[in-house]
């Protein structure tokens, strides 16, 4: 719902790091996005062109690296893929589990010239 603000944050982070590295242009941005982060990449991409217009990030490719939701079962000492947000271990049926990944939302790297 607030993808516009989020897109502005991504652009600000990218521009800050680009300037630090004396870049003339940002070519590509790699964003890590967990399936449980609650961010719709489609909408972020939609705002991206608008937000980066007239900046050195204009025209930069916005690449999302999707991170699946994975949990760890303390009983089985094993990780498992979470489907439908169900944190119950599919092997032992217990819920003594913790989330390992899926909440990521970060600018991982940028490609500049």
């Amino acid at each position, binding site marked *: *719902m607030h993808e516009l603000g989020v897109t502005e944050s991504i652009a600000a*982070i990218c521009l800050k790091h680009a300037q630090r590295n004396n870049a003339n242009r940002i070519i590509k941005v790699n964003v890590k996005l967990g399936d449980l*982060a609650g961010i719709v990449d489609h909408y972020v991409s939609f705002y991206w062109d608008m937000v980066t217009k007239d900046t050195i990030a204009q025209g930069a490719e916005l690449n999302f690296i999707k991170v699946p939701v994975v949990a760890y079962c303390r009983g089985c000492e094993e990780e498992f893929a979470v489907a439908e*947000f*169900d*944190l119950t271990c599919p092997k032992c049926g217990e*819920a003594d589990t913790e989330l390992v990944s899926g909440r990521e939302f*970060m600018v991982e790297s*940028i490609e500049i010239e």
Partner: protein
Amino acid sequence: MDVEVLEGIFDANEKIARENEALFREHGVLAVNLMASPGAGKTSLISATLDRLAGRAQAGVIEGDIASSVDAEKIRTHGVPVVQINTGGACHLDAVMIRQALEHIDLSPLDLLIIENVGNLVCPAEFKLGESMRAMILSVAEGHDKPLKYPLMFSESDVLVVNKTDLIGMGDFDMEELRGTVTRMNPDIVIFEVSCRTGEGIEAWTSWLVERIAEHKERARRA
């Protein structure tokens, strides 16, 4: 040239959230981020809780709304300090708004600070405020299928208060199904069933909250 960035998109917010959290800890204040859809009963639950808390804990309230001070006026009648935040359109509170609100409230005499977030079952879950506890309300009228439709809020909350239990039986709401779904998504969540209208379950919730306040104070004292 590739440049490694590794910067979280919510990092700026989370840095300020950590500062708020330190401030709450320093004053031994349990800060509760209360989230729910519009009309689930956030203000009603705060009112009912404040009535029960009288003489047991000193509470303060931060009211977050897109516009108006209707809720703050209601809460003020309970004789507790209230600060109103108007987000001016934003669909959630963030850590900076809380920091600004804290300039208008004295934390020293408080044991508990209830932060009523903007009515929304989506965005508030993504923004940390520096709270000690995340609480959410789901009302019976909203239906037992909401956890699967709004998973983040249910996954992130420490406690779920199911409100309007006096409406059970008037529709197809299934409490056992709700409990099952929520517990599978968030095994550690604590669930209370209340009706702010009849007062049912309010004492159990308030007593639990009083215990958490004592626990939090003890932890803050040791730190």
